[in-house]
């Protein structure tokens, strides 16, 4: 694996490491890591650093839904043009073009079910190319970004062993 790939793989498991510790783990120096990070950011490979949050563990009333969108394209409008318009809404957390029964899969968040419904019906559905929306409210999150939200394993190994 080249250094960039190794750095990406490390960041994808823990983006909170500071540059010094990343350098130690990759067997390189902090300046090299800084340089690689700058490069990855400026070329648009690393788009951000976020915590994986179990919102159900907070007082937040946050509601999220997956919404399936069907669209009808015409000569002037392709998927890209429609995606650009949808992506601009801050309430849209993710937006993907998918294969199968519908075209776009988006995740929408809001302060209540009503807020999410309203957003979909007032902001998304009226977009002329969109022919259908199906909203699935998320009831429970078990795993996110590769992290299992189940009971965390206790270390039951012997504290000292051969």
């Amino acid at each position: 694996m080249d250094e960039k790939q190794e750095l990406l793989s490390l960041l994808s498991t823990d983006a909170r490491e500071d540059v010094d510790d990343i350098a130690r783990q990759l067997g390189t120096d902090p300046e090299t890591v800084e340089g690689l990070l700058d490069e990855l950011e400026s070329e648009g490979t690393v788009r951000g650093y976020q915590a994986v949050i179990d919102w159900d563990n907070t007082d937040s009333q946050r509601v999220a839904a997956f919404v399936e969108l069907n669209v009808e394209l015409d000569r002037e409008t392709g998927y890209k043009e429609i995606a650009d318009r949808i992506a601009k809404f801050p309430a849209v957390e993710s937006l993907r073009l998918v294969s199968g029964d519908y075209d776009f899969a988006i995740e929408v968040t809001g302060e209540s079910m009503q807020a999410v419904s309203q957003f979909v019906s007032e902001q998304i559905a009226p977009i002329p190319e969109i022919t259908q929306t199906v909203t699935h409210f998320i009831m429970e999150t078990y795993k996110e970004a590769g992290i299992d939200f189940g009971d965390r394993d206790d270390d039951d190994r012997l504290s000292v062993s051969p």
Partner: protein
Amino acid sequence: MTLQPNDRVADTPESGIRKFFELAEERDDVISLGVGEPDFSAPWAARTAAIHSLEAGKTSYTANRGKLELRREIADHVEQWGHQYDPDSEILVTTGASEAVDLALRTFVDPGDRVAVHQPTYISYKPGVRFAGGEPLPVPTGADNDFVLTPEALREAGAADADALILCYPNNPTGAVMDAEEIAAVAEFCVDNEIDVIADEIYAALTYDGEHTSIATMPNMRERTVVINGFSKAYAMTGLRLGYAMGPPDAIEAMNRVHQYTMLSAPTTAQYAAIEALRSCEESVDEMATAFNRRRRFVLSRFEEMGLDCFTAKGAFYAFPACGGDDEAFAENLLEQEGVAVVPGSVFGPGGAGHLRISYATGMRELKTAMNRIEVFVGDR
């Protein structure tokens, strides 16, 4: 007196690790760098296979040598290290690599035979040799040579007259590995002096710089080597107790004779887990190895920063820094003052004195805290 242990047992002291285990257990704020097993669980697919086998009622004995299906998977798996063993006649599945070591010693050691054991090394070999009626012959290795075993060290220790050699690389406790050239030199010594080799290669998959080289793949070594490996370290399956031995048909047949009368067969549930582990869990092994390698580099660079002399450990999940003085006192005080448990190197034989075994089989966050605490401790001395 009744139930008096025989001399061999009576003369074998309790493991030096025990004391540190007890000291560490007394406190609940201890970060332990003293653990000789991975901090991961067995890959989920392997665990699922074990569960399914139980649900299907697969709870009887298997063939003495282990399920043929598993032996076939093992034969394929070890090809990566240049091994070619016939699943029917050259592989024996055992209850942990530990059983395989014990079987090999009881099968090949005659009373009074001398068995060379390089030092420092895993704590079970010397007692195992004694229980089998043999005489352990310690062969020192040192930091000056990155804890690699050399023909010179063997010759100096008188191992030219030895009947067998136990070779454990990547090594517990040092993390040392031996490259092809170094292995070839030891192989030549063994051929020249007609020494059989028991090669414990349990950490083979955890080799970080370069490739693992097995002594059995060297010229004229296959017929005099029993290769031992298992699922404990690479597949994080320590508690499932599953290992294997590979060697020429007559050797495996002989070991199986001891095995069939003493163990019958290795745990059935574990065998199902192992089949799945070999079939579909290579990615999990790679992920674990990657994580270990990162921690290895982290730990080595932290030791360098705090001025603890540490050779570049290249395998297993151990580093073996010099602590500059009495390792037992260092470990005891470190535990008492900073709440970090490590194992003093002298536990693994005289050659380990003045060193500490640092296991980095623990999460990065704890590892960072532990290293900071060691830095404070070293600075205060």
